[in-house]
């Protein structure tokens, strides 16, 4: 829950950001072009120094959704215990957002995980490799068009025997 003063100040700075609230949580929807500035301002001016999480939601089958991917940044202020959820939307083809590793070092592995499982590119990320899946994997399995049982990758893994290794 962010303080009303914080929300008012943010509204004055970024008129195109829309705010909503649900179960006591403040959520801001930011246009894709200004996501980096908003996060930077939140960190530097409003002391949201803890990046709790970076994650993504694929809205492919979601009722009434206009955009494909929603990126979610959860921020917290360790002094005042304020929290804010910042969301932005990106679309196919080539969904990209600027990386926030420069602001929070903790974003490094979180963004790698989003790239791995959703295929969203983070521009300016120092080391954007797959993190939980093998390098030779081609799909992004948390996308809604990827089947639960996989596409047979598991059965076609190369087998290395002791003699061949």
């Amino acid at each position: 829950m962010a303080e009303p003063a914080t929300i008012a100040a943010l509204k004055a700075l970024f008129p195109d950001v829309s705010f909503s609230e649900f179960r006591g949580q403040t959520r801001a929807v930011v246009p894709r072009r200004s996501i980096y500035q908003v996060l930077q301002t939140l960190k530097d001016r409003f002391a949201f120094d803890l990046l709790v999480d970076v994650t993504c939601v694929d809205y492919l089958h979601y009722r009434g959704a206009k955009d494909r991917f929603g990126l979610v940044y959860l921020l917290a202020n360790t002094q005042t215990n304020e929290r804010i959820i910042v969301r932005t939307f990106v679309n196919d083809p080539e969904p990209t957002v600027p990386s926030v590793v420069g602001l929070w070092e903790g974003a490094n592995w979180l963004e790698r995980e989003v790239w791995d499982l959703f295929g969203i590119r983070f521009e300016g990320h120092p080391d954007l490799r797959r993190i939980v899946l093998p390098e030779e994997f081609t799909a992004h399995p948390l996308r809604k068009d990827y089947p639960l049982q996989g596409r047979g990758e598991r059965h076609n893994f190369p087998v290395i025997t002791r003699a061949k290794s």
Partner: protein
Amino acid sequence: MPLTPVSSTRNLAHDEPQAYLWTMNFGPQHPATHTTIRLVLKLDGERVVDAMPDIGYLHSGFEKLGEHLDFNQYVTVTDRMNYCSPMANNVAWHLAVEKLLGIEVPPRCQYLRVIVAELARISDHLVCNAAVGLDTGAFTFFVYAFNPREQIYDIFEALCGARFTNSYTRVGGLMYDATPKAIEMIREFVRGLPKALVDMRRLLDGNRIFVERTRGIGVLTREEAVNRSITGPIARAAGVTRDLRKDEPYLTYRDFDFDVCCAQEGDCYARYLVRMAEIEESLKIVRQAVENLPSGPVNVGIDQRVILPERRQVYSTIEGLISHFELSMSNRGFVVPCEEVYSATEAPNGELGFYLVGDGTNTAYRARCRPPSLLNLALFPHLVRGHALSDVVAVMSSLNIIAAELDR
């Protein structure tokens, strides 16, 4: 052992030709990684120049499963995330679901959830500190720590019938109410643990080998901890005072008198001390909760339409029968708003949160788990640079990496 400044090692790694550097594979199968993690270490003699963790060996798509299992079924998967404290994961998951649905559970259920979550914290910290001792050569401490852990598992068995993968919580309540026998077991445990803790601390607190191997090793500063999204005992050992039980009280943590344990040093020894102190604070919470345990129902009423009614109600009342069928039929069930919610708890390793997206059906549209272990392991290369190879195991075990949680 004197600390080598990290910056000088960095220059060595980047400015001079690196032909003499060794590359060593540590894991994926190695007793000191505890679970399946691979570390690629770049060594200059015995000194670690760089470390590259390689994770994903236990990735089994928990978040994808969360989009196909309903809110009560998925609790079995959360058991398998941090298997050292499955109860804490159960509580975190169902708190998130209840936040999405807008349900408040009765006081008795909240107290019981606090008790099991704190017992899980004690068991997790015991295992972690036992592993720190084991990896630095103190095997006796390991045996001392596993004895109370066994008692905790006996309590869990008395509460829900399972020792390891508990799945104790349900949407709007618990699987079973606590029996008088289980309460008596918790009381006995609370009476007996302080003596065991004194014995344990006498073994390790002043043990010269242990202190020399952990003090000044893997130092983390407060600024680095916040910047790298570290939470839980590792951040508190570096001077961060954040504890969600105090800062954003959930369940009934507001009712209890306990302290947040912090240290300034940020090294492996401080992490050990913070965990030991947190065990004592958790014990205080359990003692207060079990003595003030309210009576009354443990589940929300059947009018909330989330919990299966008792069999007597199903067979003798029409409301019970209707609500039983509504919950059992696949096209009915919970009333879930098309909304998104984030709920966080203070799990033993740090902030364990779930980001849930509801789409009106019984299953989550997206069930994101914010795993504390993932961010803790991301810290590992930063902590270990410049230290000796033998310090790798000390740092690794003090971070308490649970690979099942970080890979999911």
